[in-house]
């Protein structure tokens, strides 16, 4: 019985309180903005090859985000979300995992998917919801997923992936294959009931899951000061009895270090861990959003000075693992490839009308087959009204 433990705790006879200040939460930093490393810093495991892969991922990420926002502005794409300013948190954590570990993301973690090697074509096909999209054109842009790459398809309802990650990781533990799950979540979504349910379930049932909170200061227009009254999300780990660390989310080496240690811990101990990465959402929430309605340019400029990609580049330069010429070539190459890929993907056909009813069940029900065939007859009668599908109905 737990109660006994408490009875054995320190007994006081005058009220003594605890509160949000009762626990001090240090923040881990390894890399300075100028690319130098703090004295005595504990470095993550990283070599030139790994660092180069990470930097390529960051570059791809930055160019993809830039190009897709431009495409959206040009009216070629309906919607997009950048991760501007948060790339180190996302890519650094993905780089601390094994490729067979499961990634359950919120939506702003394309960086993790780039790191895993999702092809440019796959990105484009999803965003243009064409017939080559792995998700069959059923979700809004940026809702990627890939079974092969162990990247769970994004779901818009926030925080639902948190208890799911506990369950997924529990299944990994049952299988005994020494794999873990990382679950990304925003500081805003962390207010949902599912957050509480998921962290508690994971702690009680000892699931090997890393809860990785991107605290970027905003949930759409709502600043984190109106989201919670405690000391961020890390302070909640105490309540669940979950080992927790806070890192500078713009410091890729710190994020990588924390994730590498977390992976070791959750797999060896069969317990969850919580990482809170402090960062700032430099861009708009999405292309539908206009941050000038709720924050100042000055505020944005202040945080822009902490660009995590530049910080990593500075370190790479200092290591002599990278130079300015490589930088120019890489970025130019990426811009061209991405532009070309947009042009290809945007003209690929939408999925055939038959895909309207597949995957509702493992096999379409008789009723769905009936609804589809009625619909096809209707489209044949009015082909002009349904230009996307009419031409291709046999």
């Amino acid at each position: 019985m737990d109660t006994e433990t408490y009875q054995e705790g320190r007994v006081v006879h005058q009220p003594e309180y605890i509160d949000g200040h009762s626990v001090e939460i240090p923040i881990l930093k390894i890399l300075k903005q100028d690319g130098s490393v703090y004295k005595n810093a504990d470095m993550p495991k990283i070599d030139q090859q790994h660092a180069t892969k990470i930097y390529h991922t960051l570059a791809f990420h930055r160019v993809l985000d830039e190009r897709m926002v431009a495409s959206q502005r040009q009216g070629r794409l309906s919607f997009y979300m950048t991760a501007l300013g948060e790339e180190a948190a996302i890519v650094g954590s993905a780089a601390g995992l094994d490729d067979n570990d499961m990634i359950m993301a919120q939506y702003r973690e394309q960086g993790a998917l780039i790191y895993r090697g999702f092809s440019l074509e796959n990105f484009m096909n999803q965003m243009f919801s064409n017939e080559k999209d792995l998700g069959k054109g059923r979700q809004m842009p940026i809702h990627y997923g890939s079974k092969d790459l162990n990247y769970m398809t994004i779901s818009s309802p926030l925080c639902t992936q948190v208890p799911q990650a506990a369950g997924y990781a529990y299944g990994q533990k049952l299988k005994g294959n020494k794999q873990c799950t990382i679950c990304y979540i925003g500081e805003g979504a962390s207010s949902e009931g599912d957050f509480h349910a998921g962290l508690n379930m994971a702690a009680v049932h000892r699931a090997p899951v890393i809860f990785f909170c991107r605290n970027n200061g905003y949930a759409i227009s709502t600043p984190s000061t109106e989201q919670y009254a405690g000391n961020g999300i890390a302070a909640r780990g105490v309540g669940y009895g979950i080992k927790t660390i806070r890192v500078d989310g713009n410091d890729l080496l710190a994020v990588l270090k924390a994730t590498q240690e977390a992976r070791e811990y959750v797999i060896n101990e069969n317990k969850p861990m919580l990482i809170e990465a402090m960062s700032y959402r430099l861009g708009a929430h999405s292309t539908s959003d206009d941050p000038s309605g709720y924050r100042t340019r000055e505020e944005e400029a202040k945080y822009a000075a902490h660009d995590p990609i530049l910080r990593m580049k500075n370190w790479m330069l200092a290591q002599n693992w990278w130079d300015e010429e490589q930088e120019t070539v890489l970025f130019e190459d990426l811009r061209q490839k991405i532009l070309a890929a947009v042009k290809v993907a945007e003209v690929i056909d939408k999925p055939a009308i038959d895909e309207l009813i597949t995957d509702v069940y493992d096999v379409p029900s008789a009723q769905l087959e009936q609804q589809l065939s009625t619909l096809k007859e209707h489209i044949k009668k009015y082909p002009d009204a349904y230009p996307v599908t009419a031409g291709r109905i046999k």
Partner: protein
Amino acid sequence: MAQMNLLQAINNALEIAMTENESAVCFGEDVGHFGGVFRATSNLQEKFGKARCFNTPLTEQGIMGFANGLASQGSVPIAEIQFADYIFPAFDQIVNESAKFRYRSGNEFNVGNLTIRTPYGGGIAGGLYHSQSPEAYFAHTPGLKIVVPRNPYQAKGLLLAAIRDKNPVIFFEPKKLYRASIGEVPEEDYQLPIGKAEVVKSGSDITLLGWGAQMETLEKAADMAEKQGVSCEVIDLRSILPWDADTVAESVQKTGRLLINHEAPLTGGFAGEIAATIQDMCFLHLESPISRVCGLDTPFPLSHEKEYMPDELKTFEAIMASVNY
């Protein structure tokens, strides 16, 4: 009278309600300073202060729990759920709590002051999580009222009625009409009745019944049918719960035919309830089966939204099938 779009009409109703009653409070995700992601609550924080119009943490169950408590205390909560697709985490607070609060306490306590506003429906390329029409999920719940306006005039009058109604009301706003639907709206206070359908157009051969954004579809289909010599009576149900069976039955007794249209999937949708009731009330008058033109039994699609929707062509076809039965 002023020209307003649907958002402005809602904003105007909220302003009237908050001016009239100082215990009226608006809240939800991004509802405060920013005025909501669709800007329905624009300027309310400026006018009424942060205590009466504010952002909440990102938790629909928390929003609705908080709203239930506030209503039971005697304040007048007007809670926003950012998209109707995200109302489900609050399902327990609404269906087990709001709906049953008065009944279970023998009216010692009630949350009659509660209003829930939420944008619903397709038309914004939102896919399965920004397009749902969940009215039928709530319509199986005694204790709730459910209202859906079709244009700015209706929106203002019905929202004011919903806020003042002494029962918890869910107010579904057709988001594709937020800016698209513009009309004359009186600047002064007025109310439209909850629980009363409106005959939008009278006719003699078939009754077309719908609500919200689909009313436009029905009107277009009616126009097409008229060209074929079919006279359509068009009815806006306006309230899903309670719903005005008498007005519908009266119409069907005259026309002998009924077609119901909604965006939500066919199976388990509210058209089923209406058809079941009307076949009973009008059995001897029906000249053809009651027809349901609804969404398919799939999640709301993205690239096939056009094909999925119960549009005017499908409605027109169903009208003709009914008339030629």
